[in-house]
Structure formats: structure tokens, C-alpha cells
């Protein structure tokens, strides 16, 4: 379908091109012949008609300038903005001056008009390939300079010195050639890009050049009565207006298409998010089910064995399951700070691990109690122990806890290889990990955040004799050195 559409478009383009050129040419010829004929001139009041046509041309030109600015903004094309500047100069300086016969203008005024005309010409020529460095505002700057020059010429003390410039055919021929060249350039650009709007812009400018040519060729002494010239000029500007309107329409279409596209992108993104959310919810549900089931079974298993070691392990498993549940519920946000004994928390974690390969020695200063959430301490120490297992498998681990001033210091020390030199702080960043040892790199980062939220700190460093990694957790100590109970470590769930 696309290929067919392209072929159709390709076939239609020369046809449309031919129609455009023929219609414009016919219009020009008819206008020139009709208004040039003695019969029509006799029937029309020549003076007022001429003024009417000039006024209309100025209005159409102003409208075209506005459209050019809009098109420039819409399409992001600096070119249209340069054309707008040229049109403004043409309509405000060049066009009004033609309502006065040249013979009534002094050389200074004529020179000023010529400067404005030439500036408009330069603007048009540059518009073909606007320098990127000047952007869309360059045209207006050039216009301002040209306008200033024109005013400057008017204010010259001896304008007669300029008569060599305005007398004779040189200036006229230069303007005519320049204008025609620029116009043909625009038409060629339209042809190259197969753009009707740009082609019409070129055609309109060519008609303006033709009007000028007609005027020079006719060489009538009474310029104010040159009806075909005024009519042709109006036609040229009208074609330019149509072309620019078309460009604006193209820009609007593009804008709307972009909007559609962005809406679709947004909708697709929203759908992805929604589906990801559903998936996460489903996974949460499964995890919750699993945890609830494990908690139930743990409760059943060994509830009547009477072995204190068993009972402690059971409690530790339940506490761990409760902690995982709390994570799922996002309950780690904030709880009321509570005083708790450090010893039962660490004992639970260590006895959970005693069955695995690495031996853990635990030394807790009696009565050490901290203030905050015991689940956070449990999670962070769990993360650190898991870290020791990953980076120093089989190495001995010592966990100590003591009170130091207003803080409780918990140290987890292994006898492994230690931290990579110079990376002591980096290992706490999100996503930093040892490729060879696995892990997602989030454990230490999250641990540090958790401790920080409790008002504490987590630091890692390499120590010697024997070499190993030392993780130091500091958390606020309890105000009362001996709280009533330390049972929070056995909390089961967040219900």
C-alpha cells in the first residue's frame, strides 16, 4: 500500500506542477493584457484603482509575513523567518514608495528606497540557505540594519552625491536580476523537495519579479498609473500568501501527528507500568502465601520438642519470616522507636547460622540495649553475614556488640581477603558489586540506608592481624540502659 501511494504521489507531482505553472502564467498574461488594454483603462478610474491594488498588496504582504513567522516556528525552519523579514521590509518601505511617481522623489529618498529594496533582496537570497549560526533571528537583525541604513541615507546632508547610484539602469537591472534569481532559487528548492507549498512560494516571487520587469519594460513616465504592475504585484504576493498558508497547514498537521504519536507512546508506557504492577502484585501474593505457609509449618514443627536449641531456632525462623513479611508490606517505612536488648536479636541470627558451614562467634556486652527497630538491626546483620559468606566463604566470623557513649556499636568481622583497596566507600554505593562473587550489589547500599534511617551509620574497612573485613554498625543506644524486655526480636508478623 505504501509503495503504491508513493508511486501515485510520484505520478501526481509532475501533473500538479504543470497545472500550477500554467495557471499562474495564464493569470499573469490575462492580467497584463486586460489591464494594459485601452478599453479597460478607459472604463476604470485609474488613480484610485492603483491605490486600491497597492493597499491590498500591502495587506496581503503583511498577512504573508505573519504566516511566514508562524510557519518558521511550527516547522522549525529558519528560512521562513528570513522570508518574513524580507516581506516586512518590502511592504513597509518599498511598496508605499511606488504610490509616488519617481520623478517626485529626491535622490536621497530614492537611494533610501533602493537600500531597503536591496536589503529585502539580500534577505531573500540568504533565506535560500540561511546560515545556521544566525538562526531564525538573523533575518530580523539584517532587516533592522537595512532599515537603519535606509533612514541613514535619508538623513545624509548631501543626498545629491548619491544620484550616480540611483540614476541610470544599473541599480534597476541589479535588483531585477537579483530578485529573479532568488525567486527561481525558491522554485527550484520546491521542485527538489517535491513540495507544492515551496514551489508556490517560488512562483509568487517570480510573479513579483515579472511585475517589476513589466514596469521597467513599459517605462511609462506616469508610474502611478501603472495598473498591470500593481495587479501583478498583488497576484504575486497573494500566491506567496497561499504558499505560506499551506506551509502553516503542513506544520499544524505535523504537530498533530506528533501529538498522536506521543499519546500513543504514553499510553503504551502506562500499559506497561500497569502490567508490571499487576505482575508485582501477583508475585507479592505468591510470596505472602509462601511466607504464611512457612510460618504455619514452623509453628507446627517442633513446637513440643522441649529442646531449648530447637525452640530458639524456631523463634529465629519465625522472626525472619515476620521480617520478610514486613518487607513485603512495605512496613519498614517507620515504626515508633523502641528500646530493645541487642543480645536476643544477634543470638537468634547467629543460632540460625550455626548449622551452616561458617562458625560465628558472638560477644555481646551484657545489658546492651539500643533504641529503634530491632528488625532493622536484624536485617542489616543478616545482610552483612550473607556478605561475609559471599566474599570470604568459610572464613571465621566474629560478631560483637557493646555500648559506647550514646551509641551501640555492633561489629561484624571476618577473616577473609578484605575490601578492594581504595573502594571502602564505593562498596556502599548502589549497584557496586564484585563480579566474581555474585550478588546484586544492593545489599550493602540498602543496609546503610536502613541504618541511616534509624539515625545510625554503617562503615566497612579492611583490618589486619588477621586480615579481614570489619563492618561497624552504630545505632542510637537506649536512654535507659536496662529496658524491661528484649522480646521484640521474636515478633512474628506485622499484623
Amino acid at each position: 500500500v505504501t509503495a503504491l501511494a508513493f508511486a501515485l504521489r510520484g505520478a501526481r507531482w509532475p501533473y500538479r506542477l504543470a497545472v500550477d505553472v500554467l495557471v499562474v502564467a495564464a493569470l499573469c498574461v490575462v492580467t497584463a493584457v486586460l489591464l494594459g488594454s485601452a478599453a479597460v483603462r478607459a472604463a476604470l478610474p485609474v488613480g484610485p484603482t492603483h491605490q486600491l491594488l497597492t493597499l491590498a498588496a500591502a495587506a496581503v504582504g503583511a498577512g504573508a509575513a505573519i504566516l511566514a513567522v508562524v510557519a518558521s516556528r511550527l516547522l522549525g525552519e529558519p528560512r521562513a523567518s528570513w522570508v518574513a523579514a524580507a516581506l516586512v521590509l518590502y511592504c513597509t518601505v518599498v511598496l508605499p514608495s511606488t504610490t509616488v511617481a519617481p520623478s517626485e522623489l529626491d535622490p536621497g529618498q530614492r537611494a533610501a528606497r533602493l537600500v531597503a529594496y536591496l536589503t529585502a533582496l539580500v534577505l531573500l537570497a540568504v533565506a535560500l540557505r540561511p546560515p545556521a549560526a544566525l538562526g531564525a533571528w538573523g533575518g530580523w537583525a539584517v532587516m533592522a540594519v537595512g532599515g537603519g541604513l535606509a533612514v541613514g541615507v535619508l538623513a545624509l546632508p548631501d543626498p545629491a552625491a548619491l544620484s550616480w547610484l540611483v540614476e541610470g539602469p544599473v541599480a534597476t537591472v541589479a535588483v531585477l536580476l537579483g530578485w529573479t534569481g532568488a525567486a527561481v532559487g525558491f522554485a527550484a528548492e520546491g521542485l527538489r523537495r517535491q513540495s507544492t507549498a515551496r514551489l508556490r512560494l517560488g512562483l509568487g516571487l517570480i510573479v513579483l519579479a515579472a511585475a517589476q520587469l513589466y514596469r521597467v519594460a513599459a517605462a511609462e513616465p506616469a508610474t502611478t498609473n501603472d495598473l498591470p504592475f500593481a495587479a501583478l504585484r498583488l497576484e504575486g504576493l497573494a500566491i506567496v500568501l497561499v504558499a505560506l498558508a499551506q506551509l502553516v497547514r503542513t506544520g499544524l498537521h505535523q504537530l498533530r501527528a506528533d501529538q498522536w504519536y506521543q499519546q500513543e507512546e504514553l499510553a503504551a508506557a502506562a500499559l506497561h507500568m500497569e502490567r508490571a504492577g499487576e505482575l508485582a502484585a501477583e508475585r507479592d501474593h505468591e510470596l505472602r502465601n509462601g511466607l504464611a505457609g512457612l510460618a504455619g509449618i514452623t509453628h507446627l514443627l517442633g513446637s513440643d520438642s522441649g529442646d531449648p536449641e530447637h525452640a530458639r531456632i524456631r523463634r529465629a525462623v519465625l522472626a525472619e519470616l515476620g521480617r520478610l513479611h514486613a518487607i513485603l508490606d512495605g512496613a519498614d517505612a517507620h515504626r515508633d522507636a523502641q528500646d530493645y536488648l541487642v543480645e536476643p536479636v544477634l543470638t537468634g541470627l547467629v543460632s540460625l547460622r550455626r548449622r551452616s558451614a561458617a562458625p560465628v562467634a558472638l560477644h555481646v556486652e551484657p545489658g546492651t540495649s539500643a533504641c529503634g527497630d530491632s528488625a532493622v538491626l536484624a536485617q542489616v546483620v543478616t545482610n552483612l553475614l550473607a556478605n561475609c559468606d559471599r566474599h570470604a566463604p568459610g572464613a571465621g566470623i566474629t560478631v560483637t556488640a557493646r555500648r559506647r557513649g550514646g551509641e551501640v556499636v555492633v561489629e561484624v568481622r571476618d577473616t577473609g581477603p578484605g575490601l578492594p583497596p581504595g573502594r571502602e566507600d564505593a562498596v556502599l554505593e548502589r549497584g557496586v558489586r564484585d563480579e566474581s562473587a555474585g550478588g546484586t550489589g544492593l545489599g550493602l547500599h540498602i543496609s546503610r540506608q536502613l541504618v541511616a534511617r534509624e539515625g545510625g551509620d554503617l562503615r566497612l574497612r579492611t583490618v589486619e592481624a588477621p586480615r579481614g573485613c570489619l563492618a561497624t554498625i552504630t545505632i542510637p543506644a537506649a536512654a535507659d540502659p536496662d529496658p524491661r524486655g528484649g522480646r521484640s526480636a521474636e515478633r512474628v508478623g506485622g499484623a
Partner: protein
Amino acid sequence: MAAAPEPGTSAVLIVDDHELVATSLVLSLRSQGLAAHHGDPRAGAAGVLAASAEHPPGLALLDLDLGRDDAGRPVDGVPLVAPLRAAGWQVLILSGSADHARIGAGLAEGAVAWLPKNAPFPALLTAVHDALAGRPVMPRARREQFIELHRRRSGEHKELRGRLERLTPREREVLALLANGQRAQVVAEHFVVSLATVRTQIRAVLTKLEVGSQLEAAALYRKAVRR
């Protein structure tokens, strides 16, 4: 822990697709002298009801998300509440769902209370005994609050469906495809019409649904058709 009522007189039926949860509950309750059974939802809603008919009506512990049946369709627990109630069962919702409006739907159907699945296991057992003894398991105000949430949401659903009613069948089809993540171009090819036609239809949909963007329209549609 509360003393068990006479064993065997009233059964406790655990309707949960999760084997471990169901088994640990059944074992715990049995160890406390209750006639606990597992109603496996994998046979679908009809299977659960058939299983419930095999026992004298007592207390049903019902999960709301019951996994998928043998045909792969998700089994919803909410529609099971009313038939279980009609068969003489007292229904206790045991769900890990954080969707309170959905729990409210179950409560509105006649379930007596909701127990969060992450409650400590002893608390779960106590609640079962409380429910069997006719003691309140959930504060009345909280129950009402959940039901109110459900009412509000079903009201919203009704309103959304009302808005969807304004669409022509073709506009509804277009919206359904868009809500499913299809691009307008794909929709146009699907119905063998031009892209411009589809865009006109989309504009009509936005006007009729009183929304500002395709994004909102798609979200509204998905919200309205979700259970």
C-alpha cells in the same frame, strides 16, 4: 487458646490454593480437635462447593485469590461467599490481598470478617476459635469501612460502565484495542479503514467519555472492565 467446640459437629473448611498454607492450617486445627478439611479450588468454584457439601456446615476460611483452575482461568473467591453462606457456612476471609475494596466485596456478600494472611499463626488459630464461638473477630467499624470502600468502588465502576455505554459498538471495539496497547495504525489495519477514520473515532470516544487524552480513555476502559 479457646477450648475447641465439640469435635466433628462443625467442620472447618480451608479454601486456599496454596498447599503449604492450607496444610499447616488443617494440621494445626486438627491438632486442636477441630474437623478441618481442605477445599481445593483447583477444580474451580463448583469443585469447592461440592467439597463443602461433603461436610456438615461450619466455618469456611476463604482466600480471595484462588489461583487458576484446571482450565487456566483465575478463580475468584468473592462469588463463593454467597453460595457458602446459603449452604449454612460461616465465612471468614483469609487473604493476603492488600485490596481492601475487594475484601469489602467479600464482606458485603456476607463474610463475617477478614483475617490478614500475614497475621501471626497463633492469632489466626485464635480467630478461628473466636469465629466458631460466635465472638467478633473484626471490629464492626472496620468491617463497615471495608464494605463502604467496596460500595464506593462499585459505584465508580457503574459510572464508568455508564460512560462506556455511550459509545457505538465500533468505538468500543476501537477503544478495547487501544486499551490493549494497540496503536491507531494497527487498529486501522485491523478494521481495514484509514488512519484518519480511526483518529476521528478516537476523538469521538474522548468526547463521549469526557476525557482529555487517549491515555485516560484507555485507563478508564481497563478500570471499567476489571473485576
